[in-house]
């Protein structure tokens, strides 16, 4: 693991400065400052409703921010659709409820974006898809439909589908919290493997074992703010703020 951590470079992958967001009059994100270097693996945790999902959804413009600056891979997020599309094709995302396309086969789910966005020839896109499906260990399901797969398998397909766009950054929004315990491990293993290859990752998750094993930084959010961030060892063994301590005692307590 120490080796993997060395891969973090000085190059900046995501920089968020002074970002604020409101839903109507409700101030969801307040003065977020966050810089992510290439190859960093960040785990974001915090109580429900603290704005974790909103934060990572702002990074690929699924949510619009009203103030501040977000720069992803050298592209500044503005309302310009071209910039948004460019960022989205560089940033992969996995959702809590997988969001596979139920009317397309697993293979088609994976080849769709490369074919239509990257203009990859179909045959090449299929080879690429099979490569990543093998990587998440379900090549044999390629011709099935999402409805025929278990939750864990679906989430791994969703990861493969994102990887087919060969993103430089991956966002995960509670990828395991809709899964049964026995399926959580297969998805986490896939994510660990990805981390070891040096992917820049932002994961919203409450899997603290995963955080300890792969994260270089754990961020704790509450009420729309970043309350504390630290290396995992220090974060878990020696949390500074009271709210972090309370939160950790709640989720690690049982």
């Amino acid at each position, binding site marked *: 693991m120490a080796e993997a951590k060395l891969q973090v470079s000085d190059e900046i992958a995501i920089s968020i400065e002074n970002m604020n967001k409101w839903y109507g009059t409700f101030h969801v994100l307040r003065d977020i400052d966050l810089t992510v270097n290439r190859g960093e693996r960040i785990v974001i945790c915090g109580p429900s409703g603290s704005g974790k999902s909103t934060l990572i959804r702002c990074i690929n413009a699924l949510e619009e921010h009203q103030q501040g600056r977000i720069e992803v891979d050298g592209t500044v997020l503005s309302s310009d659709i071209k910039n948004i599309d460019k960022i989205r094709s560089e940033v992969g*995302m996995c959702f809590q409820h997988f969001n596979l*396309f139920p*009317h397309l086969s697993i293979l088609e789910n994976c080849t769709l974006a490369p074919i*239509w966005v990257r203009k990859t020839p179909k045959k090449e896109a299929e080879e690429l898809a099979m490569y990543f499906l093998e990587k998440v260990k379900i090549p044999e399901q390629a011709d099935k439909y999402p409805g025929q797969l278990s939750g864990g398998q679906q989430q791994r397909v969703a990861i493969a589908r994102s990887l087919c*766009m060969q993103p430089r950054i991956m966002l995960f929004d509670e990828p395991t919290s809709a899964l049964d315990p026995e399926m959580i491990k297969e998805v986490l293993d896939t994510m660990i493997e990805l981390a070891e290859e040096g992917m820049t990752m932002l994961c919203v998750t409450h899997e603290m074992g995963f955080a300890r094993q792969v994260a270089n930084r754990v961020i704790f959010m509450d009420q729309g703010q970043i309350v504390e961030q630290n290396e995992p060892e220090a974060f878990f063994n020696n949390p500074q703020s009271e709210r972090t301590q309370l939160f950790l005692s709640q989720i690690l307590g049982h």
Partner: protein
Amino acid sequence: MSDTNTTPVAFVRDAMLPEQAAPITAAGPLAWIKKNLFDGWFNSILTIVAIYFIYLIVSGAFPWFYNGVWTTDSLAECREILQGKTGGCFSVLTERWPQLLFGFKYPSEEYWRPTIAFFALFVAVAPVLFNKLPRKLLIVTAIFPFAAFWLIWGGSILVPIMVAVGLIVGYVVFTRLVYQSSAMGMIGGLVATVAVWMLSGYITDPLSGFLALEPVPSRDMGGFMLNFILGVTCVSLSLPLGILLALGRQSDMLIIKWICVVFIEFIRGVPLITLLFVANVVLGYFLPPGTNFDLILRVIIMITMFSAAYIAEVVRGGLAALPKGQAEAAGSLGLDYAQSMRLIILPQALKISIPGIVNVAVGLFKDTVLVSVISMFDLVGMIRGPILASTEWNGVYWELWLAAVLFFFPICYGISQYSQWLERQLATGHR
């Protein structure tokens, strides 16, 4: 008692049970009859009563068909032959068959033209309805509307060709400009199309005899052919228009959204007959005098708008039924709005909307008989007007209306069967 108590709770299965065939539920036709028709005294009575009613209907209708007369020239002759027996005068159908099909003014030596168009229609819609057919057949689909227009209305082949050229030019301009902005693309495309159409007058007018079929004006169209033309054209136009309206209603652009909302709500709040009267009379006042705006075209526009509004609402229901995550997943993969609509959202939304869309389509097809109210001679207009008003056939109701039923039923039933087949084809397991 003591035995069960001593059995240990722990249990390990050492031999796995083999799979067994499913139980056979019904054994033979007799068992089926007993189970489904004579299951208890109440069901038995119901069955017997039902059989009696079926007997009454069949025994009443049978002599009517069996004694039917097929070869007379008028109702009076027919009554003479029957001499008081029950029997249908089907000779009205044999004698007026061409009028029921084509109306009473379409030149009889040209009947072959709409007939060819009718059969070509099946070739043209086949690749749209059945995904497995080779995609190359879609060329036939693209050519068909223009060819059918030429066949049915006649005139020089240059007219439909120039219409097609205008559309193609507009499309090319659209694809060139759409990279700059979609509004530019639309306006540019529209302008180019209209310009080509206006200029094409200089070609088609002097060459009006070039490859010309005998022209048949719109007011000479009639019979079931008219219903069929209206039905097919309006269904195929209102589906894309309805989808656009549904998308527009969901749009973030307020002007577009409100145009769509007002259009849909207004059209849905007005009876179709009213719109048809508007098409017939009122539109004439708004158009500059002397413009010869075809009546069939006006009716097509009205019926299309009417059913497009309904289809828009059906499709909107389908769009609303999709989880938000689908659009988000498509967006997060980098698909743009048009791609995510076309590849992800619409295929699923339309699949959910199939029953509703078919409902509208079947309703629309049947509603085409309403044009008889604005004195067009469609199938119903023909029956009520020229045929029943004629001295020969005054009073032949049953036979004629039965024929009308037999014209419409197979088509509407066919559409509904196709939609059920399509739903089964599209099923990809639960979500």
